[in-house]
């Protein structure tokens, strides 16, 4: 029997892209349940998702992607799911790649990351500022975790129950949550694995980062990362 899996989609003002994304998901992975966490959208994101027949958890106001994800993790645990997949609402992620992530969990990983930079067949393009920032992040995470992840900020991930238990309470709510979450998982003694994935171009919506805010956010992130590193080992998942 395949483990029950929930696809968690944090969505902020994605009424244009979401229907296509949900239709794709339903066509490619019909046996997966889908939860859209509406992160305080001002458009019809929640209605559009309901019309597609998926679960919708509407946050009363915007919490940021970390808060939306944590809501999804909590629901997954309460509803008894054994696995969860983090998936983008803007159509950048390809549903057919979910199987690769789940295969990593089958092989014993606690957390699987879809990497945009691993492997050779890669055509994911980012701007110069973001590229530099990502390289810096990559270096920082390597220093703090002692491991070499090719993609520290990918939002295409899968988690097993141990990881969900850890993240349902401690998932970081600050900007660039995915980087800190990666460190949390490593420090929590979880097995983290990467698999190369292809990204699509975003269908609609605007990328949530702007260059001029980047420096502030990175400074903030470094404070968070360093403090997270100094808490090392305090968060351990419940033994199962």
């Amino acid at each position, binding site marked *: 029997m395949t483990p029950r899996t929930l696809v968690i989609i944090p969505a902020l003002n994605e009424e244009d892209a979401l229907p296509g994304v949900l239709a794709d998901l339903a066509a490619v992975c019909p046996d997966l349940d889908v939860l859209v*966490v*509406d992160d305080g959208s001002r458009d019809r994101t*929640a*209605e559009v998702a*309901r019309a597609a027949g998926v*679960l*919708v*958890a*509407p*946050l*009363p*106001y915007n*919490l940021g992607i970390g*808060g939306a994800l*944590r*809501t999804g993790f*909590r*629901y997954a645990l*309460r509803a008894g799911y054994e696995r969860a997949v983090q998936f983008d609402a803007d159509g950048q992620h390809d549903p057919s790649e979910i199987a690769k992530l789940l295969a990593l969990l089958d092989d014993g990983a606690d957390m699987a990351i879809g990497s945009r930079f691993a492997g050779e067949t890669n055509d994911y393009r980012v701007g110069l500022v973001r590229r530099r920032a990502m390289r810096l992040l990559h270096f920082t995470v390597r220093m703090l975790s002692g491991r070499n992840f090719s993609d520290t900020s990918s939002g295409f991930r899968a988690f097993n129950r141990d990881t969900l238990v850890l993240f349902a309470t401690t998932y970081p*709510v600050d900007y660039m949550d995915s980087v800190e979450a990666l460190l949390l998982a490593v420090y929590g003694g979880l097995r983290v694995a990467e698999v190369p994935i292809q990204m699509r171009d975003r269908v609609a919506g605007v990328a949530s980062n702007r260059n001029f805010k980047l420096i502030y956010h990175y400074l903030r992130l470094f404070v968070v990362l360093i403090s997270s590193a100094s808490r090392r080992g305090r968060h351990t998942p419940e033994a199962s």
Partner: protein
Amino acid sequence: MTALTTIATGMPPRAHLLVGIVTVSSLLFIMRLVRRRQLRAKYSLLWLSVGVGITLLAIGPSILDTVSRRLGIDYPPATFLLLAVTFLFLVAVHFSWELSRLEDRNRALAEEVALLRMAVGPPHAPASDEPDAHRV
């Protein structure tokens, strides 16, 4: 006025009067907030003790001179500034801590609200889509 000037060694009467007015009105303001229960008990206690402290200083500024001499500070107003800055710094840090804690709780609440809203269903489900709607 003579009584006031004798107590207030070294402070001109007009300045002393000003200090007195400011002190009394801030004390009254704090007490008003406390009486209307607009301050939690822990904060009212904090600010009331500050008010009492300032009142004592206003009645007898020589206290400050004595304290300064004991601490080895030549210039008494510097003692006052040092104490004030230290106190305000600690208060600001405490408030940041309290705000962070409140924000954490707020977030957790918002997440719970989202899950509850999901369980309850959309606010106004169209009646035509609900075959069971007429049974109520």
